[in-house]
Structure formats: C-alpha cells, structure tokens
C-alpha cells in the first residue's frame, strides 16, 4: 500500500489522516431494494476504508454476479472495480493480485456466487492465501434470480413460497477454517459496531481474509420461518465485539483487563477483542470450529473474529514475487534481448 499527501479540502466533514472525508469513499446511489442488508455492508466498507485512511484509488473492488456482486458500484466510486462472471471472481482477483501486489483488494460475493457456482474457485482462493479481503453477503438465497434457496440456506428454513429447505446448509466460515484460511470472521450486516472494525482488520491482514456476513434479503428471505431474516438473526445473535487500532495510532479506548485480548497484525495494527468470552482465543482453529458447531447446536449465531494467523505467508510470498509490481516492469526487466536468443538458437542446432 502506498500513502500520498492529502489533496482534498472539505470544510465541514471530518477528515481522515490523508485528508479525505467519508464522502470521498462514496459510490453511486444504490439500486437495491430498500432495507437490503447488502447496503449496510457497502456502508461498512466505505467507513472502514475511510477510517483506515486508504487512498480510494489504491483499492480494487472485485465481485461475481448477484445483488451482492452489484454493490461495488455503491461504494468507493474512486476505485476501479470488476464485476466479473458468476462464481469466478476468485480467479480474477488472484490474477489481479499477482499483477499488482501494491493495491488493496476487496472482493464482494454472494452465497450463491460463492457456495454454489463458485465453490471450486473459493476453496482454491483460500488455499492460495491470496492477499485480499473476501466478503460474502449471505442471505441464504439467490436474490437476483428471485429467491431460490442457496446452498447456505439452513435445513428447514422456509422459502418465500413456503417450502422448507431439504438440504443441510453449507457453513462458509467452517469451510474456510477447515481449508486453512488465515483470517476468518463472521458478522451480521445489522451489526455495524462489529462489522466495521472487522473489515478494517481484514484489510490490514496480509493474506486471505474471509468474512461471512449474514445480510438479509428483505424481498425474498425476511419472512417468518426464514433463518436469515433480520429478526431471526437478531434473536440468535451471539456477537463477540472487537476494536481495530491501525498502525501508528494510539490506543484510545480502555478495555477491562482480563476481558480483552489484543492481536497484533503484521503491519503493526492491533485488534482488540473485548467483552468476548474469556476463553475465546483467535489462534486456535479447532476451537473456532468447535465454537461454531456448539453455537449452532444451541440455536445461536456466533459472530466475531473467529480465527487469525497474523504471520501467514500470502501468495505473493509463496511465489517469491519481486517487490516491484509485475504490471510495472518494462522491457529492461522482461525482455532478454537478441544476444540471449542467438545463444538459444545455437543450442537448437
């Protein structure tokens, strides 16, 4: 990430360290249904990037296809974005990220986009530990194609048309944990206090940061009997809040000792997990899995930063990529010239 001198002046709005106001992180007006959870995620991303003082144009937004994948239009209007094809954003993000390791990558997907058509690419994205933040706006249905059950819909959850889902839902957070993801979080679009710092932490994390966000579809999955409605989620919510303190910033909040766990990220930022259960640790993958399972059995919906390995090796390191972005290399670095070619010819005679 590169930081530049601020060059914007807005008289009243508060400014971040770069001098940008939050409106510099706005996108176009949303065309989603009023009340759609996805809009809250867009707002959280906007606020997170503002608060973390990231230059908007140094962020790249990528998505697949779905209502959720449309949202990059609605935040970070100064950032390039790529609305790719259904379920295949992970590969586009992988290529983009190796081509220019200096940008911040934020991927937005849906539960259909990730857990069905894109399942293959999703697990391989985790496996490669691509340096990006990957958010699934999870509503248990295909919003854009009008409400069919998705693969994350819970067993027995009622569809808009009254039918009970007959299949076990895929839990993406558990899957990401099993597959070795270096950062796994789960949140709720209605819980801004938790979601914003979690996105900030995800962006600061070096490696693949996955956040599964329950994001109710007001049009097709917000009725009684839908397990991913606002009310069902609120009723079951068991949230572990957290705070994010970016590098070079003083810790302003005071936490009660004993109820706060601090995790330092590779860039020096600190995540504070407070008011969490005393025994929850973010460095224990097995325990995270068990907590998710336990919470489900108790008809609870556990959210929070579930697992974090601040020292994971991302794809750029695995590939031993040069520090200068590949897309910035020129003839001198790339083209070996005629002398080398002549010696290759010689070897082929």
């Amino acid at each position, binding site marked *: 990430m590169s930081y530049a001198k601020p060059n914007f002046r807005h008289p009243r709005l508060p400014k971040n360290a770069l001098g940008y106001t939050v409106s510099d992180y706005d996108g176009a007006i949303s065309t989603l249904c009023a009340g759609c959870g996805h809009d809250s995620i867009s707002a959280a991303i906007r606020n997170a990037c503002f608060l973390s003082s990231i230059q908007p144009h140094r962020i790249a937004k990528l998505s697949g296809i779905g209502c959720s994948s449309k949202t990059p239009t609605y935040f970070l209007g100064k950032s*390039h974005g790529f609305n790719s094809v259904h379920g295949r954003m992970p590969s*586009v993000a992988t290529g983009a990220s190796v081509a220019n390791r200096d940008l911040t990558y934020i991927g937005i997907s849906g539960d259909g986009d990730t857990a069905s058509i894109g399942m293959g690419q999703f697990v391989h994205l985790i496996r490669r530990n691509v340096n990006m933040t990957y958010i699934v706006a999870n509503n248990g249905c295909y919003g854009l194609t009008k409400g069919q059950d998705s693969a994350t819909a819970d067993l027995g959850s009622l569809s808009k048309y009254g039918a009970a889902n007959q299949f076990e839902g895929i839990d993406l957070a558990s899957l990401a944990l099993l597959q070795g993801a270096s950062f796994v979080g789960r949140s709720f679009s209605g819980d801004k206090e938790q979601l914003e710092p979690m996105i900030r932490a995800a962006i600061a994390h070096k490696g693949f940061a996955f956040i599964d966000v329950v994001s109710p579809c007001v049009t097709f999955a917000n009725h009684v009997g839908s397990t991913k409605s606002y009310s069902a989620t609120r009723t079951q919510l068991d949230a572990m809040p957290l705070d994010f303190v970016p590098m070079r910033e003083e810790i302003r909040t005071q936490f009660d000792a004993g109820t706060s766990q601090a995790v330092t990220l590779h860039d020096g930022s600190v995540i504070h997990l407070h008011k969490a259960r005393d025994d929850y640790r973010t460095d224990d993958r097995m325990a995270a899995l068990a907590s998710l399972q336990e919470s489900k059995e108790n008809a609870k919906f556990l959210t929070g930063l579930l697992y974090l390995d601040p020292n994971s090796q991302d794809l750029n390191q695995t590939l031993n990529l040069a520090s200068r972005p590949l897309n910035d290399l020129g003839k001198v670095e790339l083209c070996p010239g005629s002398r080398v070619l002549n010696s290759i010819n010689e070897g082929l005679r």
Partner: protein
Amino acid sequence: MKQIKGVNDFVVKFANVNGTGSASANHLFAKAIFRMGIPVSPRNIFPSNIQGLPTWYEVRVSSKGYLGRRGGVDLMLCVNPQTIEDDLASVEPGGYFVHDSTKPLAPHLKRDDVTFLGIPLTEMCMREFKAARLQQLLKNVVYVGALAALLDINFSILKDLLSDQFKGKEKLISPNVHALEMGYQYVTENFKCPLPIRLQQGVNDAPHIRESEHILMNGNTAAALGAIYGGATVAAWYPITPSTSVVDAFSKYAERMRIDPGTGKKNFAILQAEDELAAMGMVVGASWNGARAFTATSGPGLSLMSEFLGLAYFAEVPVVLIDVQRSGPSTGMPTRSQQSDILAAAYASHGDTKHVLLFPATPRECFDMTVQAFDLAEQLQTPVIMMSDLDLSMNDWMSPPLEWDDDYEMNRGKILDAEGLDSIETWGRYLDIDGDGICYRTLPGTHPSKGAFFTRGSSKNEMAVYSEKGEDYVQNVDRLLRKFETAKSYVPKPKVHDPIPVKKPKTDLKLGALFFGTSASPSYEAVEILAAEGYPIDVMRIRAFPFHESLDAFVHDHEMVFVIEQNRDGQMRQLIMNECHIAPDKLASVLNYSGTPITARTIAAQIRKALDTQGSNVVKLHPETA
C-alpha cells in the same frame, strides 16, 4: 523385386511401445540427419498413455525441404509385436522392414515386395548388458546404430550427439556408444550397406533451407519464448496435452531469464489453476490490472474458457490464449493432431462475439506470433487466440532461427496514465474518440480522482455507467464490430507465392488453394505435385482472422478454390463463407481428420479427384486410402 531408391528423399517410421525409452533414441536419429544438413521432419504419433501402448515416430527426409507429411512409409523399423501386422502392411512396395529377429517372425508376416532386415536386438542386448533397464533402453540405441549403417548416417555426429545428451552423466556415454557400434557392426556384417535409400551430406535441393542456420525446435517451446520476449509476466494454466509444454517451457526460461538480479525474486508468476475457467479468470484479472498475461490450453479447455472469453470481449480486456488443437474431447484421440477448434475459437462465447485468431505454420511463427499476440491484445483490447496444433507444437521442426530486434518496444495500446487523464477533456472508457472502435483504457490505481470505473460485461454506456438501454447496447456492439474491422489491418496478412509455371495446363479453370497452419507444408508440396501433372493452382496461406481483404479478392479471382484443413466440417471454409459472403459452391474442402497430420499425397489425391468430378464441392477421403 524393385527396391525403392533415393538419396535424401524417403520416409522412415519407427513402431515402438511407449515408456521403453525409444523417444530419445528416435530423436537421436532425426537430430543426426538434421546435423548432417539434410532437411528432415520427425513426428511423434503417440497414445494418451504413460506406458505400454503403441507409439510411432515418423521421420521424413526430403532434399527438397518438404517438411509436411508425404504419406506412405519406405522403411519401417518395428519393435512392437502388438502392431507388427499393420506396420508391415503399411510399407510401400519396394520398401524395407527392419525388425527384431531374436525370435523368428510369425509365418503369416510375409510380403514379397518388401526387403526384410532382421536384427536380433533383444538377444544382442541380453548378451551385452546386465541391468534389465539397460537391456531395454539400449535396444533402441542399437537399432539407431544399425540405421546409421543402413542409411549412411555420419557416425561421428551420432557420437557427438550422445556426448551432448549425457553431459554431466558421462558414465552413460560409453555404453550408449557401444550400443550404437553393435548395431552398426551387425548390419555391415550381415547386409549390403548402405541401402538404395540413403543419406548423403551436401545434397540439398531446398534453397530456402540454409542448413547452417536452421534450428530444430517445437512450436510450444517457440511460443513460450515468444511469451518471454513479448513481456508476459503472468501465466495461468491447467495441464492439458498438447499445450502443457508451453507453460513448462515458459517456466524453464523464466527461471533463467526473469529472476531479479538484486534480490533473486521473480519477475513473473506462474499459476497452476484449478481448472481452465480459473486459468482464464486469472489471465483476465492480471490483464485488467495491466500485466501481460496468457494461458495455453486445448479444445476442452477452450470450451471451459468461453464464458470468460465473452466477458473479456465485452469488457475489452486483453487476453492471450494459445490453443494447441487436438482431436476432440475426453481421452485417447486427444494426443492426435487436428485443426478443429476454428469455429469454436472464432465465435467462442455467448452474445455476439468474434475473436482475433492467429495461425502459425512454423515454430518461428509460433514465436513471432506470440509476441505479436500480446501487442495485438493490448492494441485491440480483446482476446487474441493463437491456433497452434499438436503437430506443430510437440514435434521438432526445422525452422529458420528465431530473430529479435532489440529496438522492439511493447505496444501497450491506448492506456491513459495519470498525466494522460489530466490532459484529456472528457474521458469515458467506451468513448470512441479516434473512430477506430478502440477506446482509452485506464488501469486500477492510476489517478486519485479520475479514470476509475466499474468494469462489467454488456450493460453499460460509453461512460462505463450501468445501462440496460437498447441504444447503448447497440452502440457498443456496433463499435466492437468497428474495432474488428480495424483489426483487419493490424493482424498478419496472408502469404501468397508466385504461381508455379505449368507447361501444358490440363484445365483452363482458374484454381486456387487456401490453407493455414500445419496444413501449409504438405499443401505447398501437393501443389507442386499437381503443377507437374498439369494443374496450375495459385495458393494463399491464411495467417489470421479477421480475414484480410486480399483473401476476399483471392476467392473472387478464382473459379474454384480448395480450402485445405484438418477437421471434418471444413471449419475454415465455413468461416470464410460466413465472413466473406462467398457462395458455398465456390469453395471445395480438402480434408483430413484422422488425427495424424495431413499428407501431401492426400491433398493431391483429393484435388485430383475433385477436378475429375467437378461439381461436387466436398471431397472427403480418408488419408490412408488416398
């Protein structure tokens, strides 16, 4: 019996079992002929299998420099009992059959018109070498030694090649040389050497082949070097024969030439994707971000990539795809060669899409066209597909050396940097300012407040704002068509050659032939055969799609045009009919789709037959029956 005679003009075929080490011995044979300065073209005909199935190696020697397949076999060397009957049957009358005589041949394996040359290969190796693996491996070297005497190969060249091959493993040189000598000695003692077909250094009737300069290389290695020289930094792929060796070679050269000298870190990334969908997605992502990226695949992979190809076409993201064509789906025939992805590639994907295709015919062109593909993809902001095939890509071809102009600069096309964005009045990603259908691209991360937009498929207006208006869509796709028109003047032009003078023409029809890729060599040869018979045929070699206007003119200037290609449906013929609005009866197909590369004899026979029965426009003959 009349034996086939000839200096530097014959076809030798080896019948082996795969996994027995025959490949390197056979290569040694071909390379020795190459080093003697005699035009030679070896071809592997191999199964989709690792060990135990029949495999052949066909070596054409042609003083006239014909590098395509001729058809027919003059000398068969058969060490595979599984195929011996067919192998014997395929020898030309007057030809030669070299076999392992450790056990006597079955009584039914007889032919009066073939010279049998039995060598007790197994017995000799059992006697001479102890280790079982050595006995098997060196049997191949023994027969090369035998052929050296039978065909008069320069023995010291063979020895040099062995020393090259075993550099660093010197211990292996002496048993190999010994095996060569064993074979050599056996045949000189038992047969009259050399045979009436033989080699002779210095006899070369091919002025276009300068043996001192030519190299022997396969198309995939050449394409990989093209990617290195063309500045590719990201290669994403999923293994599939016959394209795999493109990325293998790219990796090999990149590890040598693309390591940052200061840090030892890599100025390239190779991503082995989970499938071809992902491979193409990675290329699209990397190219969108301004890196030169490519993938290599074959037919099934091309099918899987087609959704992304459509997106790249509409989103106008450069993509370089090397499609090494093979025969159809699944496993088995896929290790055989065809030119059968033409239509699938030209129109890959949904909606109205057309893609730029390049058709290399030699390794040199694989190199040049790969470099060019990166320039074209960026200039035209669209996918460019280089259509190679198994024959070109995996076989060694005699090729003029690769050349590089150190003044070459990558043509990145219309990309606006921060300064450019500041100096332009109104920028819209899909605004056609220059009228050539090509708009100005911006890359992520360039400018703090200008040039960002949301890349998407088809629903957008000129300013890259979401739109589902019919007018916006129509305007966009019409502009894409304009861009495709522009592409015609950017892509390599077809090659025409001076007509061969024909003394007493047997026909007054104005005849033409169109061909491309690996169909070219045997087509040139067939045209010469037919010219000698009194049929003058003008030729044009297609090198790219969209077609250059001279192709339209060529078709219009001739009364009957043969389109020579290696697929069942005459796909290039269809593409020409479609794109140049040409009536079907003007274009006659000359086809081969058996999986083995088309031969000059097949082409000549089909054209002869078509001329005898004028009017029927599709003439199909199985190559081996022609």
